[in-house]
């Protein structure tokens, strides 16, 4: 089975080979007929945009919800916060991502009319962000609970309020501990962004489905799309490894290593 990689240099309008395959990308050339390569790269950009926005939402919301789940339940406000964040996590973990995308795209704009003014890919990013935030909340909660209990007690003994002890003692260590699980969640989010095809966001999976129908060179198209997904996930992995290296605290190896911790 021979692969015809020349399909990428074909015109999307009539299937003829484009004059300048590589130099005419993004409409830079003279006869800028859109080729499949052009379409592929634009679709990759859409995937990264959807995933990037979703990741930003997920990290912020997930960290907040995970922290709220670990609050000491000594006041009625705290009890209510713990119960709400638990409800949030359970709600967004038990509904499939595709159903959540449909909800955000079709159902919720009917209830909240201002959402109808949003571009459609923002709604998909919100759906992805909320779905992943539930999983990140669980990781953050596990990270906070992995800290030795002496840290909390020492913070209270020093007279820090709850907010101060979270801000200065608990969260700096816990967020560093959870960077590896956050890396795998970020890679999962890149993969989950593929569900945006269901609401016609022009990202990689929709490109794969449409280009395969148009050209019947399914193997080459799917190979390119798969490679780009793997490349994106790898890039996210390396980026998070860079973040971990830059945020590492010298001399602090593991949270339970009390010989080095204070």
């Amino acid at each position, binding site marked *: *089975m021979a692969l015809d990689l020349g399909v990428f240099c074909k015109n999307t309008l009539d299937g003829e080979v484009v004059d300048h395959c590589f130099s005419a990308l993004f409409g830079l050339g003279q006869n800028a007929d859109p080729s499949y390569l052009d379409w592929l790269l634009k679709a990759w950009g859409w995937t990264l945009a959807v995933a990037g926005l979703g990741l930003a939402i997920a990290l912020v919301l997930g960290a907040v919800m995970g922290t709220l789940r670990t609050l000491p339940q000594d006041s009625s406000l705290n009890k209510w916060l713990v119960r709400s964040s638990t409800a949030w996590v*359970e*709600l967004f*973990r*038990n*509904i*499939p*991502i*595709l*159903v*959540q995308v*449909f*909800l955000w795209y*079709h*159902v919720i704009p*009917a*209830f909240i009319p201002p959402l109808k003014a949003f571009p459609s890919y923002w709604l998909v990013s919100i759906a992805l962000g909320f779905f992943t935030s539930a999983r990140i909340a669980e990781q953050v909660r596990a990270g906070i609970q992995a800290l030795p209990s002496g840290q909390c007690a020492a913070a209270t003994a020093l007279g820090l309020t709850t907010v101060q002890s979270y801000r200065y003692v608990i969260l700096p260590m816990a967020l560093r501990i959870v960077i590896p699980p956050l890396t795998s969640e970020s*890679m999962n989010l890149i*993969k*989950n*962004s*593929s*569900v945006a*095809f*269901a609401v016609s966001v022009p990202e990689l*999976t929709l490109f*794969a*489905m449409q280009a*395969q129908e148009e050209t019947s060179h*399914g*193997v080459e198209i*799917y190979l390119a*799309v*798969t490679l780009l*997904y*793997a490349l994106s*996930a790898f890039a996210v992995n390396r980026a998070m490894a860079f973040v971990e290296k830059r945020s590492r605290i010298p001399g602090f190896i593991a949270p339970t290593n009390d010989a080095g911790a204070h």
Partner: protein
Amino acid sequence: MLSLDLSFYNWELFTNYILKGFLFSVQLTVFATVGGIILGTFLALMRLSGKPSLAYPAIFYVNTMRSIPLVMVILWLFLLIPMLIGKPIGADLSATITFIAFEAAFFSEIVRAGIQSVPRGQGFAAEALGMTYGQNMRFIVLPQAFRNMIPVFMTQTIILFQDTSLVYAIGAYDLLKGFEIAGKNYGRPIETYILAAATYFVICFSLSKIVRRIQAKVAIIR
């Protein structure tokens, strides 16, 4: 505020549209779980065998399946299986094969973790008693590993049930598609999507509560 018309929530809605999709989703989940565990156990044993000729293909397969989106795997196999067997294949059968192949990678990681959680002294004692590798696995290690891994298997099954909604990509008639078609036929997409979300939530939430209860009972006391 939008007013919802829930008057069409009745038994006919269920039997005409949703039951068929629900049965397909459940069937897909069951086949993928059973097939995935069997194939996943083989993959885990290949990976732990210590022979590079067995380990490297297993590692390559698992890493590939874990790095591509599930929708792409569904599309790939929907394209490749007819190419390989020479005749067209229905979306249902393609979805079943895809899910077994995909979940095998995840189950193999779980089984591998389970096998490695059994104390190594057990394997040494089996060797001292003169058991072969196969007898060691079959009578000593795998029973203990599987008992440890039952809650994780069940959690993975719940995730699998949620992922079956992705067969939307190839048009298979699963639970979500049933709700969507019902919404189009009754002209009320909003109410049916809400009902779909509520159904998935109730099923997955109760199953995860059951898993938590079983987790306490199944844990091996050391």
